[in-house]
């Protein structure tokens, strides 16, 4: 048993290291080209925070079985916290140049602080909210998400127009964590490492005692309580844990964008970032599969990118062209189609594991080859 766990760690670390080396090779080969700087690196940043967001919502939606519609509120807290702390550091003159070691410390500190603040607010929200379940929980989290955004709007130092136009001026924020193209390329490893650490923490969480407990709560809350699981403790813990990661995602978002505005964190808007979009990602990937969330975050990012920038979209005319002018329409259709025809999502509850991959494929093939036999027998 123990041997296979060690084996798993070694395989995973080896694969990650191989991927990182591959990325470095690509970087050294094409590092100066415009495609790399302006398309590939920003895309990586976006993918990173989308992956963390989708996976963290999946903890609540897929594993705990509670619909939270205010996930972007926690992300907004993380983003604003990271931006404001970095601004404060900037004003205190902690990091003059971005290559120094202290800058990286501040950067990681900001990300951690953003996560912890979001987790604290998540705890405060979770204690009253998780007394309810189902529809009421959805509505109350939606309400909290709106309140958070509304309060940030009314903060004197954050401002309605966002950090770029509010009391903190754009140039200051850009000197803080708001990365320009060059810094994005330099610090892309931070985003990747943070995403990997977050994913590892979430995988470990769902395989631990906590993960088994919340799956039991999802399947039957009354039975779980009867078996001695402290349901409210586990629910609030999961909610807080999930809020932590959305705060981290918010901090990454703050790094990747030189301006922040609360309208990006609303319940629905035309852009890629809203609570509904995260729900679409989780449902598409499969409620209860972190692998699914990662894959579907990447799929949805590519889809969004294609809708916004693809050449084939521009060639469409008439109603079809109008349809692609409003990406949320496409996502709504995807959501309905997935819910109707494959409610489990792409992966269902399947988790990818490199150790078991070969075994899983073999089992799948065996299942597939068995099916036709049955029909013949009939």
């Amino acid at each position, binding site marked *: 048993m123990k041997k296979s766990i060690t084996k798993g760690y070694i395989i995973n670390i080896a694969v990650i290291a191989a991927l990182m080396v591959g990325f470095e090779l690509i970087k050294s080969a094409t590092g100066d080209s415009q495609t790399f700087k302006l398309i590939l690196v920003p895309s990586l940043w976006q993918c990173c925070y989308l992956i963390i967001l989708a996976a963290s919502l999946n903890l609540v939606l897929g594993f705990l079985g509670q619909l939270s519609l205010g996930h972007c509120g926690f992300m907004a807290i993380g983003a604003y916290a990271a931006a404001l702390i970095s601004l404060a550091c900037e004003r205190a003159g902690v990091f003059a140049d971005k290559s120094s070691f202290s800058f990286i410390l501040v950067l990681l500190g900001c990300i951690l602080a953003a996560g912890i603040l979001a987790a604290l607010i998540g705890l405060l929200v979770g204690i009253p909210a998780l007394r309810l379940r189902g529809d009421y929980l*959805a509505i109350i989290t939606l309400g909290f998400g*709106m309140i958070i955004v509304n309060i940030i709007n009314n903060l004197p130092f954050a401002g309605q127009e966002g950090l770029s136009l509010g009391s903190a001026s754009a140039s200051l924020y850009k000197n803080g964590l708001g990365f320009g193209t060059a810094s994005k390329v330099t610090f892309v490893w931070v985003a990747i490492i943070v995403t990997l650490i977050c994913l590892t923490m979430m995988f470990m969480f769902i395989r631990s005692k906590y993960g088994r407990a919340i799956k039991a709560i999802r399947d039957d809350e009354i039975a779980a309580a009867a078996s001695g699981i402290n349901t409210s403790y586990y629910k609030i813990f999961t909610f807080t844990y999930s809020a932590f990661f959305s705060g981290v995602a918010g901090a990454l978002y703050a790094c990747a964008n030189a301006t922040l505005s609360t309208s990006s964190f609303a319940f*629905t808007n035309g852009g890629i970032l809203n609570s509904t979009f995260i729900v679409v990602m989780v449902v598409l990937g499969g409620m209860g599969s972190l692998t699914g969330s990662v894959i579907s975050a990447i799929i949805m990012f590519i889809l969004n990118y294609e809708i916004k920038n693809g050449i084939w979209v521009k060639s469409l005319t008439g109603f079809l062209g109008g349809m692609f002018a409003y990406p949320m*329409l496409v996502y709504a259709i995807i959501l309905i189609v997935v819910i109707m025809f494959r409610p489990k999502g792409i992966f269902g509850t399947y988790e990818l594991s490199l150790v078991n991959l070969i075994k899983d494929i073999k089992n799948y093939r065996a299942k597939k080859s068995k099916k036709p036999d049955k029909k013949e027998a009939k």
Partner: protein
Amino acid sequence: MSTFIQTLIVGLRLGSIYALVALGYTMVYGIIRLINFAHGDFIMVGGYTMIFTIPVVLALGLPAWSSALFAILICAVVGMSTELVAYRPIRKRGTSMTALITAIAVSLLLENLAQAIPAIGPNPVVTSQIFSTGGFSISGVTMEWTTVLTIVISAVVMVVLYQFTQKTRLGRAMRCVSEDKEASILMGINVNNTILLTFAIGSGLSAVAALMYIAQYPKVYTTMGAMLGLKAFVAAVLGGIGIIPGAMLGGLIIGLVESFTTSYVSSSMADTFVFLILIVVLVIKPAGILGKNVGEKV
């Protein structure tokens, strides 16, 4: 003092619009236990129907408000087809969670589909005046005719609806289905048709709310229903979801809270207070003001 009364009147007017929308929410929730997120967008459908039918109606020599009849018809059709196409298949196979996600998806679909239709587009459209302008004023307090009509019409609609659910056969059937679906099948009630009727009535009410809304704020845009619908849902939860008098009470309270915060605290904080009330109510008394706590059966 006159500011206070003016605020009170504004609150009542807003509240009666919320109450009308909340009635639709509460009826649908009461019967199928599903938050119909798309309900707010039925208001938008009603608004645009009126935009397109007002010129027709005026050409026929009828008053502008009669276009609301078309709006009610269209909204009822949209509501029923939503139930038939999206909610009914999901209800048969999925869990309550998938049904809720479908409702969100339908809401998004309606909003964005409207934007994608070239004749509607994303920009707001300004409507013509629906009711006659003017009003009267008593000791510094101005009452516009629109305000009076809004409050009176919604009060009448609510009373009629309440009597409908209490006295008529169809209304009784609706109450039966919301209480116990299996038992009402045994009593010979056609459950699916009753649910369809509930959707039709609820969506029709949202068209009436659309009339009131654009009589007051003569602007129609595709996301007009989103916030209105959410606040109306808050109203329905506040009063006790599934209970018709509760929806009226909740609507009026939400309207008053909103108008008083707007005029005495800050206009940008009004939404915060509305949702704060929801949270306080859900924490203290999840069944709502008029609701009764029901124990869970294992």
